[in-house]
């Protein structure tokens, strides 16, 4: 009997002693002290506790590098140029970097550990990207399998964004999805109302995020999002504006229309919205109200397969079938296209052939 206790005691003492040694060693070896991160040639300087990964440290400092996998080195999005102090390129990074990026000292920020002072370069607009806490203030069906989600921002209370940009919504773990995921959604609401943003979310069969929004999200829920992101926004010019959208691609276009109305911008505006049947049309009332506020707005809805009983009298066919009638002076048109990638590609091709300069065509592909 005694020998059992002696045995347990002796082994526990041994294990305890070793644990103590490890703990001491850990505080010595894993302590990298304070490190300085100089951003964009000294534009900003961060003093951080070393030892962590660059992506996480930047996030803690309020700089949100886009990342879809949450820092596990599997999405390859969190690329950052590190010109000093990153150490050698790791085998976990090479699959995501091409030759030119390696030459340019681009690294995956989720793999680079901060062990010493670093000099990094990031696009300045990333400084404006913040993480927001928001409360779901409205949730309504606007068409079949399509929901409008209203998010009242809590902290910070207002987002400054350009009409047409998107946010990344955080979907928490639920059901079979065992880790949080981020998905990008364009903002449909006006940029002038930065305290509540609206997103349009179409249900995708088996989609992690869309299933969550359609089946598990409730009014009053709290959620996290970051943004604004993206280069798809209205450019300043005098040219005519051609807006082309299908499905939830109407979201950023709505925001652009609100912007045109709010800012009293006097430009000729054409909106082409393509859908399959009448049941897929949405935001009709909103568009009518916008028509009153934008005198030069012309809205064309075109249906590719209207059903018999719907008695559709408007144009039939795809968006590409109605565009030629609207574009009279191709060189003086600025086009904004948003929707599924196939549609975006065919419209872009059509416009280029008609003579719209490439630099006047902007698009956002919703994959």
């Amino acid at each position, binding site marked *: 009997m005694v*020998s059992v206790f*002696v*045995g347990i005691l*002796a*082994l526990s003492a*041994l*294990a305890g002693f*070793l*644990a103590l*040694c*490890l703990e001491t*060693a*850990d505080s010595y*070896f*894993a302590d990298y002290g304070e490190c300085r991160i100089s951003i964009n040639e000294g534009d900003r300087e961060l003093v951080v506790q070393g030892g962590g990964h660059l992506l996480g440290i930047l996030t803690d400092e309020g700089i949100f590098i886009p990342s879809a996998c949450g820092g596990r080195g599997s999405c390859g999005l969190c690329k950052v140029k590190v010109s000093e102090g990153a*150490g*050698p390129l*790791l*085998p*976990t990074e090479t699959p995501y970097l091409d030759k030119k990026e390696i030459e340019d000292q681009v690294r995956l920020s989720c793999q680079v*550990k901060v*062990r010493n002072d670093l000099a990094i370069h990031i696009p300045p607009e990333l400084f404006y990207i913040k993480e927001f806490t928001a409360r779901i203030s409205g949730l309504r069906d606007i068409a079949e399998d399509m929901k409008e989600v209203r998010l009242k921002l809590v902290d910070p209370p207002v987002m400054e964004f350009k009409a047409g940009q998107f946010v990344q919504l955080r979907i928490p773990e639920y059901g079979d999805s065992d880790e949080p995921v981020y998905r990008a959604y364009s903002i449909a609401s006006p940029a002038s109302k930065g305290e509540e943003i609206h997103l349009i979310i179409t249900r995708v069969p088996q989609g992690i995020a869309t299933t969550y929004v359609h089946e598990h999200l409730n009014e009053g829920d709290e959620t996290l999002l970051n943004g604004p992101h993206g280069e798809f926004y209205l450019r300043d010019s005098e040219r005519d504006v051609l807006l082309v959208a299908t499905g939830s691609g109407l979201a950023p276009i709505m925001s652009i229309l609100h912007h045109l109305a709010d800012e009293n911008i006097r430009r000729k505006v054409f909106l082409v919205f393509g859908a399959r049947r009448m049941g897929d049309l949405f935001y009709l009332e909103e568009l009518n109200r916008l028509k009153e506020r934008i005198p030069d707005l012309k809205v064309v809805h075109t249906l590719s397969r209207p059903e018999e009983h719907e008695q559709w009298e408007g144009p039939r066919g795809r968006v590409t079938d109605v565009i030629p009638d609207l574009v009279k002076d191709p060189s003086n048109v600025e086009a904004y296209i948003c929707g599924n990638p196939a549609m975006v590609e065919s419209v872009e091709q059509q416009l280029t052939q008609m003579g719209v300069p490439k630099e006047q065509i902007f698009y956002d592909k919703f994959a």
Partner: protein
Amino acid sequence: MELGTTAFVIFFAAIFTNNILLTNFLGMCSFLAISREVKPALGLGLAVIFVMTCTSGLNHLVYHQLLVPFGLEHFRFIAFIIVIAAFVQLVEMVIERYSPVLYVVLGVFLPLITVNCAILGVCLFMIIRNYSFVQSVAYGAGGGIGWTLAIVAMGGIREKLAKAKIPTPLEGPGISLIIAGLMALAFMGFSGMIQMQ
């Protein structure tokens, strides 16, 4: 024979005639997995030398100062594994700090040194063969160097092999095992050199 001389003999015997990998075939798992190139093989080998030398000494002390006085010799497996595990953790910390690339290259095999049977094997052999402390450390160091010698040689051969035409069914582990066997045969040539008990 004097104590020093025996330790010296044991050290060389562990490298050549009684190579833990090529005569006892212990530690095959990481031997096959990390031997594609010389550099990581050398890195792992150095880590094994360090862990083996230190743990054979430590475990000798633990066995003779802690387990034997309390009559707990039957606990030697657990005790040895704990000591080895703690030591590997330490090595891991050091490598992560000073050589991040090696750390990533070694990947999961670094923590796996813990269960590298060559290391436990060395610790158990030294008890069975009733080595003194100095002899144990010499045996550990020799065992580690022998293991490293084998894996680095294997790495060199496989680097050349990567460019060679090998019959498809033998690619990968197949040819590696055959080479390991040939290397073991070659090492038998050393056996006349030193006689070890």
